[in-house]
């Protein structure tokens, strides 16, 4: 119950990274992504160094490599696309392993692959070291419009409620001799899916009202104060800081070449 699948995003731990306040981490990841995207695609070794930086974070946070790889499947469609671009791309062509490929396409494929992958891994590390609820508190701290944060909070809650209601409905169906085995059963599932939306909403609505009747006014009361100390901000911003340094270095080198 209640263990919506988004909880598995978070790997409980007590590392330096875990302990950083969420607002620091959010800002660090965003800044890192911007630096990565701003890097010209020709600077191969800069991307290599970015990857090393992320690997450092992963090690510090004790996030296993297999976990990161498993979560990277979200990127798959774009990886396929990246490999496709050289094949269908326009312009000057070259032959690699007997296949005719577009040069510009190769560059574009590499560009998307490198930047998207770095961005994805950074986000994965953020989610792995910060509870969803806490990320939202961080967003609140970063002055994201409170209505948006509230909607997101309810969204997380409702994902739980929906999962929970789905589980209840499944148990109820099975305990009355139902097994979804073949296509004839789809209408049953479909009909109960219609009820699911309303059930989830109404349960959620009552919970919301329960919150209101205990004085909720749109902001979660801050029970544990999480404000970032200077040291923590410095630790968090070290990631984009170093990335920026890499970018600067690569620019200098690019000039001198």
């Amino acid at each position, binding site marked *: *119950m*209640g263990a919506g699948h988004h909880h598995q995003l978070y790997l409980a731990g007590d590392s330096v990274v875990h302990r950083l306040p969420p607002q620091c981490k959010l800002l660090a990841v965003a800044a890192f992504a911007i630096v990565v995207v701003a890097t010209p695609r020709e600077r191969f070794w800069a991307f290599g160094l970015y990857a090393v930086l992320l690997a450092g974070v992963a090690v510090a946070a004790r996030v296993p490599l297999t976990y990161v790889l498993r979560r990277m499947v979200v990127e798959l469609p774009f990886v396929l696309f990246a490999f496709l671009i050289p094949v269908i791309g326009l312009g000057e062509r070259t032959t690699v392993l007997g296949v005719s490929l577009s040069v510009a396409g190769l560059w574009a494929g590499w560009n998307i692959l490198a930047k998207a992958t770095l961005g994805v891994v950074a986000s994965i590390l953020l989610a792995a070291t910060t509870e969803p*609820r806490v990320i939202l508190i961080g967003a609140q701290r970063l002055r994201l419009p409170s209505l948006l944060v509230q909607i997101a909070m309810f969204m997380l*809650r409702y994902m739980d409620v929906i999962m*929970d209601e789905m589980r209840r409905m499944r148990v109820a169906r099975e305990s009355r001799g139902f097994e979804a085995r073949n296509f004839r059963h789809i209408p049953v599932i479909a009909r109960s899916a219609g009820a699911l939306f309303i059930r989830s909403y109404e*349960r959620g609505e*009552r*919970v919301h*009202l*329960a*919150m*209101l*009747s*205990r*004085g*909720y*006014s749109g902001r979660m*009361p*801050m*029970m544990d104060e999480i404000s970032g100390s200077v040291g923590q901000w410095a630790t968090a911003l070290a990631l984009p800081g170093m990335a920026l340094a890499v970018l600067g270095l690569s620019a200098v080198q690019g000039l001198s070449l």
Partner: protein
Amino acid sequence: MNSPAVNSLEVNRLAYAYPDGTQALFGVDLTIRRGERVALLGPNGAGKTTLVMHLNGILTAGHGSVSVAGTPVRKDTLKEIRQRVGLVFQDPDDQLFMPTVRDDVAFGPANSGVSGAELERTVKGALERVGMLEVIDRPPHHLSFGQRRRVAVATVLAMEPEILVLDEPSSNLDPAARRELAEVLRSLDVTVLMVTHDLPYALELCERSLILSDGVIVADGSTRELLADTELLARHRLELPYGFAIPAPAEHG
């Protein structure tokens, strides 16, 4: 009407229909004075839950009016009303929403500005009262039904409301917990309105009872007298349980 604050709850000609068109209340009138403990009895589907949901503005009157300690329940007074009226829902799952029992009980007081050591004390005190201190760090949705009900009561006790409205608080409680709850309610100096199907429990706790049936109040009087009127009870699907006899008066204070 001169000293409205003497009346904790006043409901006038209250009617309500649910969005799907089912009308549940057909003009309810009632008045509860400060400090009274009143039982609200009635058959399944009579509208009891619908009525109590109006008392802190969770549902808003389709017709008629509700006022709490002299303040009418309206959009702009909701915040104040909700701090005065503590409502224990019939289904504890509707009431508990935080990741741990501690957070859940702390939610109300934290919203009204309590924090730090005092918050901790309030939370522990409330859980102590319902005998649930040992589950303080567990997620509420991983408790047994009865445990959840007790935590739900604690979340409301922690807010120290002046008016306590409880919708079937004793259902799913074990007999000892039921008695302990009665003791807690008796020890508090607050107005209590309690919905229950447990007539002996109503008699034990409440001097006065109301019977709601088919969306209107059909009886209002001393619990002892109402329960003695077998015919009235039977008309509204109420009856005294097997093996129960109304004990001699003045046993309980």
